[in-house]
C-alpha cells in the first residue's frame, strides 16, 4: 500500500513538472508566433481586424465580374514591461490576404503611435507607406525601474481608393506599474 501511494505521489509530481514545462514551452512558442503575426506580444494589447469583400465590377459588356481577393486589415497596439527590462510598445497596421500571413499591398497604409507615462508624453512617431502591406513604430523606455501608469495609443490608416475601402481605427493599450 505504501509503495502504491509512493508511486502515485511520484506520478503526480512528474505530471506537475511535465505540465509546467510544457506550458512554459507552449507559451514561448505562442509568443513567437504572435510576434511573427504581429499580434499581441505583451500582456494584453489590442488588435482589431477588418475583413473586406471586393465589390462587383461591371465590365463594358455588362457582365458582372467579381474579384475574389479578400483581405484582412489588422491594427494593433501593445505595451508591456519586460522582467527587469524597459517598457516597450508596438504600434502596427498590416494588410494581409485573408486568413493568411501573406502581404496584400494597398496604396496607403500608416500608423501613428503615442506613449504617455502618467501625464507626460514620452513618444510620438509616424510611419506611412505607399503600396505596402505594413506600417509600424516601436518604443522602448530608457529606464528600467519605472513606477507609473503607461498608456499607448495608435491611430491607424488604411486607404484602398480603387476598392473604395477606407478604415481609420484607433487602438490603445495600457500597463499599470504603480
Amino acid at each position, binding site marked *: 500500500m505504501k509503495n502504491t501511494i509512493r508511486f502515485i*505521489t511520484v506520478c503526480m509530481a512528474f505530471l506537475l513538472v511535465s505540465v509546467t514545462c510544457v506550458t512554459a514551452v507552449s507559451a514561448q512558442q505562442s509568443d513567437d508566433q504572435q510576434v511573427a503575426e504581429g499580434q499581441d506580444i505583451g500582456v494584453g494589447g*489590442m488588435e482589431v481586424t*477588418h475583413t473586406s469583400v471586393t465589390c462587383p465590377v461591371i465590365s463594358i459588356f455588362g457582365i458582372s465580374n467579381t474579384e475574389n481577393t479578400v483581405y484582412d486589415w489588422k491594427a494593433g497596439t501593445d505595451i508591456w514591461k519586460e522582467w527587469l527590462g524597459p517598457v516597450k510598445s508596438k504600434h502596427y497596421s498590416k494588410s494581409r490576404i485573408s486568413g493568411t500571413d501573406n502581404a496584400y499591398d494597398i496604396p496607403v497604409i500608416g500608423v501613428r503611435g503615442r506613449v504617455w507615462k502618467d501625464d507626460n508624453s514620452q513618444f510620438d512617431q509616424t510611419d506611412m507607406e505607399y503600396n505596402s502591406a505594413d506600417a509600424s513604430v516601436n518604443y522602448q523606455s530608457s529606464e528600467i525601474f519605472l513606477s507609473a501608469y503607461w498608456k499607448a495609443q495608435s491611430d491607424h490608416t488604411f486607404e484602398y481608393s480603387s476598392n473604395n475601402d477606407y478604415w481609420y481605427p484607433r487602438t490603445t493599450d495600457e500597463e499599470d506599474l504603480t
Partner: protein
Amino acid sequence: MKKSYFLCLVLFIITAAIIVFCCHGIENSSDLITMTGSVDGSGRPTTESVSYDPESVEESFGLGLYDAPIHTPEHSLHFSQTCAENESVNGYLFISNQMTENNSYLIFCLMDYNQTPFSCDSDERGILHRVVLRPYEERFVQYSLDPPGKGIHDFEIFALLKTDQHSLDTSFRQSTDFSYLGSKRLNLFVENETFPVVRYTNFSSLSARLCDPDYPINDGILLTEEPCSTKGWFTEGAEAGDVLHYWINLAADTRYPVSFAVITLVDYVQVPLQAGTLEKVWFGNLSVGEKISVPGSIVVPSEEGVHELMMVYIPVPYQRLETEPGVSTEFQQWLWTEPSIRIGLNVSTAVNASRADRPEAKSQVAL
C-alpha cells in the same frame, strides 16, 4: 498513511489548478469576437466583418466623398473635384459606423481652412450638423456649400465623435488625443489650375520658443500650459470672459520637414488663434527636427459649464493631393489631419456674478 493521502490530494488539486489556469490562459490569447457588418439597402456587400472586443474599441469608422449616393469607385471623388465658377459645391459624405453602438457624428467643413456654413441633408445651412448612425450603419450624407469663387481651393469635411461628452475625467481627456476625428480633404478646381501661394506664418514674430530636438512630439501638435512642456494639459478652470493663455507645441519629424495649417475650435466652432486678433489659421513650415512652442489664447466662453477647446493640425496645405483620379501624391509627412487633446474648460461665472451683485455694477446694468 493519512499524511501521504493528504499529500496526494494536495498535489492533485495543484496539478488540476495549473492545468485549468494554463488552458484558460491559452484560450484567452486568441479570444477575438467576430461581428458581422451590415449590407446596405441596395444589397451591395460592404464590410464583411469586424473582429474585436467591443468593450475596448471606442473608434472605428470609415469616410468617403462621392458625387452620388453610390458606393462605387467610379463615383468616388477621391482627392479632387471640379466645379464651374458659380456652381455650388455639392457631394455626398459616406460614413461607415463600424462599431457596436449608436454614434453621433458632428460634421463641419473647412473651405480654405475657414469653417464654412453648409446644408446637410434636409437641415438648414449651418456651421455644425449632427448625424446619428446605428451600429454598423453606413449612410450617405448630402452636403452643399456656396460657390467658393474662381481658383483652387482646399476643401475638407470633418466628422467628430463623442462631442456630447464633457467629462473632466483625465482618462477621457487623454483618450481624445489625436482621436475621435476623421476627415476627407480634396482639391477643388474652379476654372483654375494654379495653386495659391501659401503665406507661412513667421512664428518668431509671435514670440515662439524653440524646443529641444528630443522633444517627444514628431509631425504633430500638443497643447500645454508651459512652453515645450511634455506634461499633458487636460482640463482648466476658467472664468467667463477671461483670456486663457496656453502653448501650442508644433513639431516637424526628426526624419523630414513638415508644412501644416492649424486652427482653434471652441465648442467645435473656429475662433482666432490668439485672443484679440482676427487670424483663424496659421500656415507653418518647419525644417527637419524643428520643434517650436507658440503662445495661443482664447476668450473663455460666457456660459457657465464645461466647454471644449481643441486645435486641429492639418498637413500639407495647398498641395496637389492626387496625381490622377484615385492615385495619391506621395508625401513624406503624415497625411492625415490630427486633433489635439480636447481640453475641458470648466467655466464659472462666480466672479462676474459677484461683480454683478455689487451696487455699482447693478447701476451700470440699469443704465
